[in-house]
């Protein structure tokens, strides 16, 4: 090694050491960068990441409360819960939905109806949502599915609470039904700020009491705070807020009375409302035909829905609340009372009924239902004979404005405030209404027919029931109530609900007594409904009515036998009993029933009989013993 080479090596070594230092600086700078990053994550953004880590690991699992039960006045169950296994499918987790469905179909029976319903629900829900395929699995089905679960991804068997309406179609319009929460329900819940309480819930009340008492029946959702791992599996429970079950409801309604009323309708369609005139408690509320509410709970299959919805009998319409019909002669007692109260008539004022009435300077004849006329008629007879001419004349003397104002006091043309949703307010005509609605002036002839409850008049059975109850209770304006008491799920104490009163109308007792006598005459020999009251061990005060479905031409006669059934008149009957100390007031409407005395009054009689004496129609099955508690 020569000197030059050594010197060269020294220079090399110096350069190497310089480069080592450069390397050290390079390393130091990058290490600082790493620590700066760690500082940013662990110190600057610490709170943010703590929060992210917490939300990673903690999940709130809602636990749905048990829905409140519904009982009739004697504690018979109307809506109950039961636990059962259900087969549910999460589309997102199935590899091939069709193959999975086919596979399931080989293991257990899936009916075409269940499959249709499943497909409809599937179409309405998101990929990740769980949709029921079959409910109420048998133990064998559960076992078969459990054994094959490993090859059926996305398929789950879950224990769930189900709702059952064992009272069947007869109670469908009262109790209603629950159904799966849909987008519209969700929107409503969100707008009313209740959506968080439905986190664990699948169902919500859709109609009837299930809808109107939803808040009480649902209860409060509980939450389990769970620690979960990355795969979403719960590792342990951190805390629990228990759900509060919904409140139970006890109705004024008597399930057996309802069944008797149902039975009395026979094949007829229509509506019936029976009230306790004292409290407004609804003793029976019938809308015929009914439907099976159980079909709706987990979604109805499209074809059944179509057949229900498109049936000419319109079983989904609650006729007691939403059926609007001309009240016909059933408003005559109220008209008579108005005449007395307004000083237009004295009880003894009598008029000759020649069978028709004509306005002054008019040749148009408003005919009486009895072509030859009723002869000389005073107020009581006008009610018991249902004399039209008497009321044509009274209406003209009263005028439409005073008529409107007086009838309105009895709740006509206005919602009764019953504790069910979607009640119709009917129509109580007035000059002002016609101007507003039709931009037309009121004609005197319209006043004439309004006097016998025809023309523009439209009422619902529940309105007529309230009107009847007010005649029975002396003018106390009650609001019909189905629910009598509410049970707290924690204390198990039944809290009675106070009757709802809208006030008291001042009526001269003497005037009311005359009208009530007239209504009693209706069921006495010679009255229009005497046949239906024959042999009753109590007294009935009532009024028959007939509402025209098709107009009868001048000079033509109504002949029921010549008309198709759907064109026959609607039959109406209002009544209360016992007449001296009424405990039940009723309004019956029989669609195309012909005459009030012929079809509607016998139904009321059957209801009275059962309610007042416990007598059941002879051809009716004895009371079912199940479901009583």
């Amino acid at each position: 090694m020569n000197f030059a080479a050594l010197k060269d090596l020294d220079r090399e070594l110096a350069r190497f050491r310089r480069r080592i230092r450069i390397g050290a600086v390079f390393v130091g700078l990058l290490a600082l960068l790493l620590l700066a990053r760690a500082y940013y994550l662990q110190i600057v953004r610490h709170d943010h990441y703590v929060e992210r880590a917490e939300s990673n690991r903690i999940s709130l699992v809602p636990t749905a409360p048990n829905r409140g039960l519904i009982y009739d006045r004697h504690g018979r169950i109307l809506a109950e819960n039961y636990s059962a296994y259900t087969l549910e499918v999460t589309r997102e987790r199935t590899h091939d939905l069709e193959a999975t469905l086919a596979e399931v179909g080989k293991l257990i029976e899936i009916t075409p109806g269940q499959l249709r319903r499943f497909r409809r629900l599937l179409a309405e829900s998101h990929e990740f949502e769980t949709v029921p395929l079959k409910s109420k699995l048998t133990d064998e089905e559960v076992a078969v599915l459990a054994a094959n679960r490993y090859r059926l991804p996305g398929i789950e068997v879950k224990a769930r609470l189900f709702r059952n309406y064992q009272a069947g179609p007869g109670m469908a319009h009262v109790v209603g039904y629950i159904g799966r929460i849909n987008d519209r329900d969700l929107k409503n819940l969100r707008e009313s700020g209740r959506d968080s309480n439905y986190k664990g819930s699948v169902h919500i009340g859709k109609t009837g009491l299930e809808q109107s008492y939803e808040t009480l029946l649902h209860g409060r959702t509980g939450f389990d705070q769970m620690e979960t791992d990355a795969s979403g599996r719960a590792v342990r429970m951190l805390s629990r807020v228990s759900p509060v079950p919904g409140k139970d409801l006890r109705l004024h309604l008597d399930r057996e009375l309802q069944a008797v009323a149902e039975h009395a309708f026979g094949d007829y369609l229509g509506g019936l409302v029976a009230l306790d005139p004292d409290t407004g408690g609804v003793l029976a509320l019938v809308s015929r035909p009914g439907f099976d509410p159980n079909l709706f709970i987990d979604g109805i299959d499209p074809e059944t829905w179509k057949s229900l919805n498109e049936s000419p009998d319109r079983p989904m319409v609650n006729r007691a609340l939403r059926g609007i019909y001309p009240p016909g002669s059933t408003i005559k007692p109220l008209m008579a009372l108005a005449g007395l109260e307004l000083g237009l008539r004295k009880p003894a004022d009598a008029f000759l009924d020649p069978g028709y009435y004509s306005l002054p300077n008019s040749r148009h004849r408003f005919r009486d239902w009895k072509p030859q006329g009723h002869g000389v008629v005073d107020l009581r007879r006008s009610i018991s004979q249902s004399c039209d001419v008497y009321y044509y004349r009274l209406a003209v003397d009263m005028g439409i404005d005073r008529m409107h104002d007086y009838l309105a006091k009895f709740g006509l043309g206005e919602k009764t405030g019953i504790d069910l949703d979607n009640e119709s307010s009917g129509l109580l005509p007035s000059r002002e209404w016609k101007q507003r609605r039709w931009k037309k002036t009121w004609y005197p002839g319209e006043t004439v027919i309004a006097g016998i409850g025809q023309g523009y008049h439209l009422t619902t059975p529940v309105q007529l029931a309230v009107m009847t109850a007010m005649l029975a209770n002396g003018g106390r304006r009650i609001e019909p109530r189905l629910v009598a008491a509410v049970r707290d799920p924690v204390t198990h104490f039944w809290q009675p609900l106070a009757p709802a009163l809208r006030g008291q109308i001042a009526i001269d007792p003497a005037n009311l007594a005359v009208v009530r006598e007239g209504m009693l005459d209706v069921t006495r020999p010679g009255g229009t409904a005497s046949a239906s009251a024959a042999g009753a061990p109590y007294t009935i005060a009532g009024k028959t009515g007939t509402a025209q479905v098709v107009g009868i031409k001048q000079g033509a006669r109504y002949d029921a036998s010549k008309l198709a059934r759907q064109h026959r008149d609607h039959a109406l009957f209002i009544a209360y009993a016992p007449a001296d100390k009424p405990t039940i007031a009723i309004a019956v409407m029989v669609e195309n029933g012909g005459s009030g005395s012929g079809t509607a009054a016998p139904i009321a009689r059957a209801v009275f009989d059962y309610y007042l004496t416990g007598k059941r129609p002879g051809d009716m099955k004895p009371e079912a013993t199940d479901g009583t508690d």
Partner: protein
Amino acid sequence: MARTDGWLMRRLRHLDPILLLLVLALLGISLAVVTSASGQSPARITGHLVNMGIALTLMVAVANVPPHLLSKIGPPLYATGVVLLVGVALFGEIRNGSRRWLDFGVMAFQPSELLKLALPLMLAWYFQRNEAVLRAKHFLVAGALLLVPFALILRQPDLGTALMIGASGFYLLFFAGLPWKVILGGGALAAASLPVVWHFLHDYQQRRVLTLLDPTADPLGDGYHIIQSTIAIGSGGLFGKGWMAGTQNQLDFIPERTTDFVFAVFGEEFGYVGAILLVALYLAVIARGLVIAGRAPTQFGRLMAATLSLNLFTYVFVNMGMVSGILPVVGVPLPLMSYGGTSLVTLLLGMGILMSVATHRQLNKT
């Protein structure tokens, strides 16, 4: 050396005490973290201990081999490695979409792992041989020796390993005295060619880079690793959640948490204080390595010591950078921390070489 010393004691004389202490400290931390990250899995802990035992034994063995002998195995090791890489290209087994493995029946083997030591050894041997007569052509030859395995590994494709091996080769050239104008020129050229390189990257590689820029774009896919590991580190805070108390770790939110993402577990459970300590330990290892390099009597020793030190840091930086979300996700373990036998053996062999260089200072002066 006293004759009374036993055989084992004589072997241990060749260990550098500072380096040994630092390595043992890091391995101790690793054992703690892997224990926590594996959910105290006995299999994992035993495996880790066995790996450590084997790797430490090999380290002691290598430390006892004088550097001039070590330098001699450079060329055959390099040649073997390159031949195996060609073998991989021709007969290799495809795993996870790339051809990286050779299956020898009893064991599968990634030849690229071999090159991590073979390439520096080869280049150091080469520069040692031409120490006195270094010319530009020697750098060209060295560059070619670097590019051959680099290209073969890049083809597998394994961009991460190719870059790491490329870096080790570059460090060696740098310490051997590669002129600055070449370094800067090459850097500029590399920067200019980035768009072209981007074009040749595989889809998954492009995605990894894009994911780094915005991990939230694909939170359940590519971004998941980065999001979860940054949450783990960030939620650790100043002092951490405590050993075995990290929720991200214990509840399975951190993927690959005993191997590549072990730093996320560490950061979550030991916090910023822990991170500073860990980085300090690595810096101490590197500083010791650079000191050894500076004192090394031979060109081979100097180049090997300096290159291995910087190489170690590169692994640390790339891994921590990836786990804390400033570098793309590449499969690089954290040196001396991650579970895994191969990388531990490679690293401790490197430590053995460092120790050999440190303790054979006077003995092999030619």
